[in-house]
C-alpha cells in the first residue's frame, strides 16, 4: 500500500493505466490514513469535548459530539471537586524523590560498572542484566510485607526509597553512555591525584547531561503515571497521587464524568507533551538497547 505511493509519483514513460494505478494507490493510502487518523482522534476528542460539557450533556441521547455550551468552568470545578492540588503536590513529591534517588543511585553504580577497574565489574553487570528479567509480581508481595513490618505502608517511603538503590534499566542506559567518555581523560585526572568521587562529580556527571535528562524524564513519567504502587501503599486519602485520585470522581450513584474528563485532560498533559516533544529520543533509546 504505502510502497506504491512511495515510489515515483509520475514520470513520462508511464502509460495511462500505470498512472491510474498510481493515482488509485495514492488515493487508497490517503483514505486509509484518514480513516485511521479518525479512529485515533475520536476518543481523544471525546475526552476533550467531554471535559467541556455539562453533566447532563455527557449522557444525552442522541450524544452530541460538540458541547452545546463550552463549560470552561468545569476545569476549576474539577480541581476543587476532589483535592486535586493536594494530589498534584503528592505526585510531584513522589516524582522529585524518585528523580533524585534514581539520578544518584544509577549514575553511581553505572560509573562503577564502566570506568572503575575492579574485579566485580563484569559479574555485577551480568546481575544487573538478569535482574531486568524479574517481573514485578513475584517480588511485590514480600516487599509489601517487609514495608508493612517497617510501618511504612501509608507513607511515601515505599515509593521513593527503592529508587535510591538503583534500577537496572537506567543503570544500563547510563553505563552505555559512560562508556563513550574516553578512558584517557579520566586517567589523566587520576594521575593528577583526583579521587574517584571527584572524577564522578566533576567529570562524569557534567559530561552526561543528555543521558541524565533522558533518565529524569523517563523517571518523571513513570512515577507520574504509576497506578499500582500508590494503590497499594498510599492508603490514606491525603497521600493520594493524581493517578489514583481520579477515583474521587466516581461515586455509588453517579460519576461526575465531565469533571473526570477535565481532570483526566490535566493529568494527561505532562505525559503527552513530554512524549511528543521527545519522540525521537524515546524511539532511539529503544532501538539502541538492542533491536539490531
Amino acid at each position, binding site marked *: *500500500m*504505502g*510502497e*506504491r*505511493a512511495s515510489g515515483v509519483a509520475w514520470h513520462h514513460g508511464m502509460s495511462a493505466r500505470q498512472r491510474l494505478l498510481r493515482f488509485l494507490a*495514492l488515493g487508497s*493510502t490517503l483514505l486509509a*490514513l484518514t480513516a485511521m*487518523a479518525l*479512529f*485515533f482522534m*475520536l*476518543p*481523544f476528542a*471525546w475526552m476533550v469535548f467531554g471535559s467541556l460539557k455539562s453533566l447532563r450533556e*455527557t*449522557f444525552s441521547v*442522541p*450524544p452530541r459530539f460538540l458541547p452545546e455550551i463550552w463549560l470552561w468552568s468545569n476545569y476549576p470545578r474539577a480541581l476543587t471537586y476532589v483535592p486535586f492540588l493536594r494530589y498534584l503536590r503528592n505526585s510531584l513529591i513522589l516524582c522529585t524523590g524518585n528523580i533524585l534517588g534514581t539520578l*544518584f*543511585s544509577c549514575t553511581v*553504580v553505572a560509573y*562503577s560498572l564502566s570506568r*572503575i577497574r*575492579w574485579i*566485580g565489574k563484569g559479574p*555485577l553487570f551480568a546481575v544487573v542484566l538478569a535482574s531486568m528479567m*524479574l517481573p*514485578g*509480581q*513475584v*517480588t*511485590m*508481595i*514480600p516487599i509489601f*510485607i*517487609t514495608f508493612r513490618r517497617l510501618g511504612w505502608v501509608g507513607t511515601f517511603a515505599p515509593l521513593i526509597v*527503592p529508587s535510591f*538503590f*538503583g534500577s537496572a534499566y537506567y543503570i544500563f542506559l547510563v553505563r552505555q553512555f559512560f562508556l563513550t567518555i574516553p578512558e584517557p581523560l579520566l586517567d589523566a585526572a587520576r594521575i593528577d591525584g583526583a579521587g*574517584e568521587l571527584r572524577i*564522578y562529580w566533576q567529570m562524569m556527571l557534567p559530561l552526561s547531561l543528555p543521558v541524565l535528562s533522558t533518565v529524569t524524564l523517563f523517571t518523571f513519567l513513570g512515577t507520574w503515571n504509576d*497506578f*499500582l504502587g500508590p494503590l*497499594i501503599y498510599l492508603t490514606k486519602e491525603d497521600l493520594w497521587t493524581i*493517578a*489514583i485520585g*481520579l477515583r474521587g470522581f466516581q461515586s455509588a450513584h453517579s460519576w461526575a464524568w465531565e469533571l473526570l474528563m477535565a481532570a483526566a*485532560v490535566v*493529568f*494527561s498533559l505532562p*505525559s*503527552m507533551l513530554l*512524549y*511528543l516533544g521527545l*519522540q525521537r529520543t524515546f*524511539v532511539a533509546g529503544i*532501538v539502541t538497547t538492542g*533491536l*539490531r
Partner: protein
Amino acid sequence: MISRKRIHWRDQVNGALFASPFIVGFLAFSLYPFLASLYYSFTDYGLMGRPEWVGLQNYLDLVRDKVFHVALNNNAYLVFIGIPFYIVWALLTALLLNARVHGISIYRTLFLLPATIPSVAASYVWLWVLNPRTGVGYYISLFGLNPPLWYNDPQWAKPGLILFWLWTVGMDALIFLAALQGIPQDLKEAAELDGATQRRRALSIDLPLISPAILFVTVTGVIWTISFFTQAFIIAGPTGGRESSMLFLALYLYVNAFQYLKMGYASALAWMLFLINAALTLIMLRASRERVFYG
C-alpha cells in the same frame, strides 16, 4: 608513577563502594523477595498471623480453582487473539505511516497521541466511549444494528479491551516504522529489476529485515499482557466485570493479596504467573531462532 599495587587495592574498594546501592538494592528488592515469595507460596499466611507451612496445598488449590481458570482463560485470550491482531495492526499502521505522502508527519503525531495518554486516564475515556447508550453504541444503532453492550457484556468485554489496546499502538508502530525505514532501498530496487513482485519483495525482503523488531514487540507485548492490570482495574473493578469476563491474572493476584489478605495463596499465584511468563518467553525465543534474521 603511582605504584600499581596501590591502584589495584583502591580501585577494588571504590568499585564496590560505588556499586553498593545496587548491591544492597538487589539483595533487598530482588533476591530476597524472589526467594521469600517462593517460601510464602508454601505457607498459609493471613497478614495478621504468622505463616503456617502447608506444603503444596496452595498449588493444588490453585489448579482446582475455577476463578483461576477463568483468569487464565482471559489472559490466554489476550495473548493468543489479542497479540496477533495487535502485531498485524501495528505493522499495517507502520506501513501506512511509511508512505511518502505530503504531511505524513502530522499523521505520525496523530497516531502516536493516544499512546502518550496515561493508561489511567485512557481507561476512563474508553469506559465512556464504549458506553452502549451514549457512546459508540448509539452510532451503531443508527445503522439498525444492535450495539453490543461492550464492557457490560461478557462476550464483548475483551474485544472492547482489545479495541482499546489497538488504539494505543503508537509507540510500537513507531518502532516498526524505524525498522521499515532501515531497509536499504537499493536492495528492493534490485529485486524489482530482477522481476520480483511486490508481494515477493515484501515477504522475502521486508519481513526478514524487520523480524528483530517483530520479535521485540511480540515479546514485550506478551509480557505486558500477562501483567495486564491497570486498565482492567479501572474498567471492571476488582471483581473483574460481568461473569469475571475481565478478571485477569494480575487482577486476581491483587485481590487475593490485598483484599482477601491470603498472602500464601497469592504468592503461589505470583509464582504461577512468573512460570507462565518464563515459559512463554522461552518458547518465543526458541521459535524465533529459525525465523529472525539479524543480518
